[in-house]
């Protein structure tokens, strides 16, 4: 079985390559990457006018299974991932029951293998039941296949526990992913605290609620070691604190979601709950700082925080609506439209943040188009428009503020392990 991808522009940030090259895939491996490959036995894929990149890796996905299958399942989430160009996704442990023991990791692995569309890598919890009190059996989780740990949705409030986690995980060399939120400051807040929360009469969440915990985590990692990865940052202050952390040599990495560099808190004026998430959408100046942080490499990764919710979770009074939006299928067009076409990032920088950089943080042998690598490949057209409608989504949920928008950046073909798992316009 051979595939030959011809005439595309290969973007391979790991090898600093950006040129028109052909890729020959033999079985499931990238066998050659050269100009003008001829192979009469190979099935030819014409990528003229397209870019050819490694399969995307999402460090932050909520698949909702088990416990909330009405929102998403491992199967529907995998399909959404494939459609969005993600060949590897890391699923967060806030399921019911949570992924806080070996059996749950094994369950996720078993289910995702049965589904067999993309690689689903479980993230285990930091503490039992994500309650912040007692450490999860981290060694067992890692042994079963967890690639990182996080209490996502909850911040680890207790600094002593965070210290111990950062120390303990050094034995396994995995990242600790923290959802940074000082819950005493968030209180009953439902949106960014600022002019628009005043206008709307909605309780605000100050930027400091996030920044205090970002600073705490970095200071703990500075003193005690470990690898801290800051999930979904949203404020200018967080960017600056992480900048400092990196400068003084702390092993800190960070991610941002596409919505946090695209949308701002003025958009909540319709009380549309598709703009409600944690962390909340911040101000235009925060967005500017985040874009600079992406350019400067302070923010290593773009992650979706794909958070499916059903209509009955979202079509309710603002304060009681659940937080979060789906993101797997809109991530690439948002990156292309908001960062690449606007020249915030060049293509190599942008693609690195959804391929090579997350692979490095998670220590995965993925995210590049080196010869000999497993063939996880995305062929996309960055100038082609996509219209975001409910039918556009393969996810079980459609809670997206991008509905109705036209964006540039179309995923044309997705190859996982040498097989085509998604084709635009196909089934």
């Amino acid at each position, binding site marked *: 079985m051979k595939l030959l991808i011809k005439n595309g522009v290969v973007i391979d940030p790991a090898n600093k390559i950006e040129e028109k090259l052909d890729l020959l895939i033999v079985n499931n491996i990238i066998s050659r990457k050269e100009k003008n490959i001829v192979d009469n036995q190979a099935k030819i894929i014409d990528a003229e006018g397209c870019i050819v990149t490694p399969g995307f890796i999402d460090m932050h996905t909520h698949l909702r299974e088990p416990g909330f299958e009405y929102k998403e399942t491992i199967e529907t989430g995998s399909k959404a991932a494939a459609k969005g160009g993600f060949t590897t996704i890391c699923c967060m442990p806030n399921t019911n029951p949570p992924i806080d023991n070996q059996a749950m990791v094994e369950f996720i692995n078993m289910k995702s293998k049965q589904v067999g569309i993309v690689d689903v890598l479980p993230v285990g919890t930091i503490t039992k039941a994500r309650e912040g009190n007692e450490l999860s059996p981290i060694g067992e989780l890692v042994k079963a296949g967890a690639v990182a740990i996080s209490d996502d949705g909850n911040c680890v409030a207790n600094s002593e526990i965070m210290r111990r986690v950062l120390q303990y995980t050094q034995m396994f060399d995995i990242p600790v992913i923290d959802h940074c939120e000082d819950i005493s400051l968030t209180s009953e807040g439902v949106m960014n605290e600022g002019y628009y929360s005043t206008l709307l009469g909605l309780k605000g969440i100050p930027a400091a609620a996030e920044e205090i915990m970002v600073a705490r985590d970095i200071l703990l990692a500075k003193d005690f070691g470990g690898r801290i990865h800051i999930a979904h940052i949203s404020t200018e202050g967080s960017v600056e604190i992480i900048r400092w952390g990196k400068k003084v040599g702390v092993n800190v990495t960070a991610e941002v979601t596409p919505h946090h560099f695209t949308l701002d808190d003025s958009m909540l004026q319709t*009380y549309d709950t598709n703009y409600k998430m944690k962390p909340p959408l911040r101000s235009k100046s925060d967005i500017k700082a985040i874009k600079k942080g992406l350019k400067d490499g302070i923010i290593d990764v773009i992650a979706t925080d794909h958070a499916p919710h059903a209509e009955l979770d979202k*079509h309710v009074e603002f304060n*009681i609506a659940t937080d979060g939006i789906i993101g797997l299928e809109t991530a690439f067009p948002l990156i292309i439209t908001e960062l690449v076409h606007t020249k915030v990032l060049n293509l190599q920088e942008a693609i690195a943040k959804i391929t090579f950089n997350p692979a490095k943080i998670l220590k995965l042998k993925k995210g590049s188009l080196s010869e000999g690598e497993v063939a996880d490949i995305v062929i996309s057209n960055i100038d082609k428009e996509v219209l975001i409608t409910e039918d556009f989504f393969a996810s079980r949920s459609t809670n997206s503020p991008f509905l109705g928008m036209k964006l540039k950046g179309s995923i044309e073909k997705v190859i996982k392990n040498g097989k085509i798992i998604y084709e635009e316009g196909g089934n």
Partner: protein
Amino acid sequence: MAFKHLIALQDISKEDILDILNLAKTFKEIILKPVKKVPTLKGKTVLNIFYEPSTRTRTSFELAAKRLSADVLNVAVSTSSVVKGETLIDTLRTIEAMQIDYVVIRHSISGVPLFLSKNIKSSIINAGDGMHEHPTQGLLDIFTIMEKKKKIEGLKVAIVGDIAHSRVARSNIWGLIKLGAKIRVVGPSTLIPKDIEKLGVEVFTDLKQGLKDVDVINILRIQLERQKKNLFPTIREYAMLFGINTEKLKYAKPDCMVMHPGPMNRGIEISPNVADGEKSVIEEQVTNGVAVRMAVLYLMGGGKKDEVIN
């Protein structure tokens, strides 16, 4: 002018506000007569649905609707139906299926009236949503000021108290600014919401400075439970710093008027002799509330402002 919903004074033009106020004047004349009823909304049904306790606003809307000859349905929703798991939209659609024309709603969550207006067919009147707006209170406050001062343009109005949590403050600010008043908000710095000065108001945390030369003082109710959230140390200290008594009233213009949307905490934000004193228009506000709400209901029914009486 005719409008389908009344959600927020932020959305209403100066002209529409003036239309409502002018019409309210006519209705006030009517309700002061021995026969207080007009047939305008005969055959129409008004639902008063209150998800928060209220005496004044609910009865005011009820009377306003009845004096326009509408049928009125009062539903006080405790949290019980929330516990039963019925969604807000389902509750409202169920009642609406019994053929309702107007829904007057109060809810503790900001944005609920707007949310409803997008999901049910009836006309929605916001009777107070969370910390967002209370447009008919804003209108009746403006009406009361206009009645006493004969104008709004150029007046200095101080809104005193818990600005952060106050829907009355927000509706007053929007309405009064549109009519050319100069607004100051006065209160403890913990109860001044972020960036409020961007609305075009001046912020004072010192009562003496805040009341200097003002024509109108609108005193907000202080929710006693705010103290438990450490927004101020003690009720006693709040009263000391921001409670209005006859002494502190002297900071304002000699002919200033004193308002309060009620219910009052006598002895805390307002002393009894100020509440009952000659500068107080607090009872007038209540009377005017009915007239203003009649005007709102009337105009929402598509009525013309020139043909009120038969």
